[in-house]
């Protein structure tokens, strides 16, 4: 019973804030609605027996990533309102039409395609057992460091690539071009490396 009530709240909050994102004129508001969505999703993860992932969702997503977003928005200026005019005639109805078709497809599949894939028996109960006995964190760790060892290592390479990339992009302009006067005027503003903190 409690799951139904909590899920109802999650559903309303997550969907409501996602929709609100669509209509938020201010980028900061959109970011805050996204945070609300993410916290609601963390609750959903708890309901579904993903305690570790729920914690990570809050810490990494709502914490690190969204703070970075807000940081950049603030850096670029918060007072700007996005003009809600259509960039290309017909693009908006087209996008909404596409979205409606996609939504219908998703819902149809969600309600029809799942029956067969139940995994046999009381699968959800098995997850509850796993969360009881070795515990969720231990279970996740065991799978992560055995079966998913290669992807785990691959993410480390990916993070290195991101770090190297950001170092290239964030370097002051003209550093390697002593003889040339760079075109941009605002280049010497001392924006520190913009993304350095987010990979941690």
């Amino acid at each position, binding site marked *: 019973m409690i799951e139904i009530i909590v899920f109802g709240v999650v559903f309303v909050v997550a969907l409501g804030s996602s929709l609100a994102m669509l209509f938020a004129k201010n980028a900061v508001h959109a970011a805050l609605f996204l945070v609300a969505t993410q916290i609601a999703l963390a609750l959903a993860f708890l309901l579904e027996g993903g305690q570790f992932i729920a914690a990570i969702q809050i810490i990494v997503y709502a914490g690190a990533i969204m703070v970075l977003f807000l940081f950049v928005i603030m850096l670029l200026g918060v007072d700007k309102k996005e003009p809600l005019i259509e960039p290309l005639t017909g693009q908006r109805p087209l996008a909404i039409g596409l979205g409606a078709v996609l939504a219908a497809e998703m819902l149809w599949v969600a309600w029809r*395609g799942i029956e067969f*894939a139940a995994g046999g028996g009381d699968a959800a109960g098995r997850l509850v057992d796993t969360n009881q006995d070795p515990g969720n964190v231990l279970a996740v760790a065991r799978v992560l460091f055995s079966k998913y060892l290669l992807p785990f290592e*691959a993410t480390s*390479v990916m993070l290195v690539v991101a770090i190297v*990339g950001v170092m*290239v*992009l964030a370097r002051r302009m003209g550093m390697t071009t002593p003889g040339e006067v760079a075109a941009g005027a605002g280049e010497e503003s001392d924006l520190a490396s913009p993304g350095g903190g987010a990979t941690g």
Partner: protein
Amino acid sequence: MEMDIPRIELAGIAPEIALTVAALVILVVHAVLGNRFSTWYLPYLATLGLVVAGALAVIVWDVNDLQLSGMIALDNFATFVKVSLAVFGLLTVWLGRDYLTRDRLEESEFYALVLFAVAGMMLMAAAADLIVMFLALETFSIALYVLVAFKRRSTEAQESAMKYFLLGAFSSAFFLFGIALAYGAVGTTNLYSTGPEADSLFRFASAGPSTDLDLLVLAMGLIIVGLGFKIAAVPFHAWTPDAYQGAPSPVTGFMAAGSKIAGFAALIRVLDAILFPLRWDWRPLVIGIAVLTMIVGSVLAVVQEDVKRMLAYSSIAHAGFVLVGVVAANDRGVSGSLFYLATYGLTVVGSFAVVSILAGPGEHRTRLTDYRGAFYQRPLLAGALTLFLLALAGVPVTSGFVAKLVVFGAAIESGYWWLVVIGVLASAIAAFFYLRVLVVMYMQEPIEGVEPAPSGGWLANGVVAITAATTIVFGLAWGPLIDAAEHARFFVAGG
């Protein structure tokens, strides 16, 4: 629940490890030694890394194995793609050396990012698990986002990087949702079964029409959309012209060759090997994309005034031709697509090498009018560009002709002759804009008072020479490469 540590077998990912190590060494050595002499050793370190990676890929030829708990497929298909990627990487590094010196860009990061990108692309070709495929895709995409923005001072480069980035992230979300749905349908993201009991996409798809497949079919559609962005297929091509135009020319060539072969390797593995039993479900979608891609790419190329944009649309059209081979979904289709991608990659790297040299410092001269009378100023380069454009148009005696022939032949074998008719028509339209460049180069006078671009360094000229030679050689003696492509078979369980 015991922990089941996988056997650490490194043969499958040895090339990727070599490249990663080489990239890190380049970064560290450059940081320690500083800028002095860096042009003298950095490109050679990168060359060494790529050669070693290529060699490590070749020595496992004819091994048929699944490694690291079913995450890596060690098969000739992956090897063929990996070796092609090592070659593209080498050409890019050599071309990049002269380009970086000329335009005074950071060196060590460029080489390191190219090596990382090649490593990611190689991993993508060998991935036997959707999540590995996704991580590989992200690794090389992130490297490419940065490489596109490498001319940091140019507004054009920044805008194109942003566009590429936003659409790339958008498309990876589609790919990821496809993975999630496939996982929901099957219960695993493994493509191949690791044991007699284990589930896999292949087993699930082979189980026959009795299974309810809705979830997997939607997953398949989303995965095709996600990969369609990477191979620049219409209607997911919007980033291509801008990214190709704004990126440094060596990077553009690398994207056109490497990104395409890696994306197609994943697409071919997923569609033609794993989801082959479901081909009647994915074929309509892929055929639609192929037709649109061929026509839109060819038609829009005609109206371009910038040579890099024109080559971008041409690369879109070529993605459509390769998709014809994917649709065929037979052995000749797979080997034909591989042959097409390898030869097209060499040709397109060569054409962007010429573009890069002719564009001059800062790459300001890429408009069609800048090529007026190029033949009288730079006969050899103009001649090489002529050869590349003829190969892209598919004129006989060039590799492009043979490639189109095998791919279209495979489609006819599968009964898709009408698709081939569309392909031939699109090629005819495409020939028009290649001819347009030739007319400008040969029939028009150079503009008075404009100095021709300085000649490229010996490495850049060498790249042009090598790619021109391969374009001719594979057009005359295609046997060995076709043979290799035909032996590039997928992993077969128990084989």
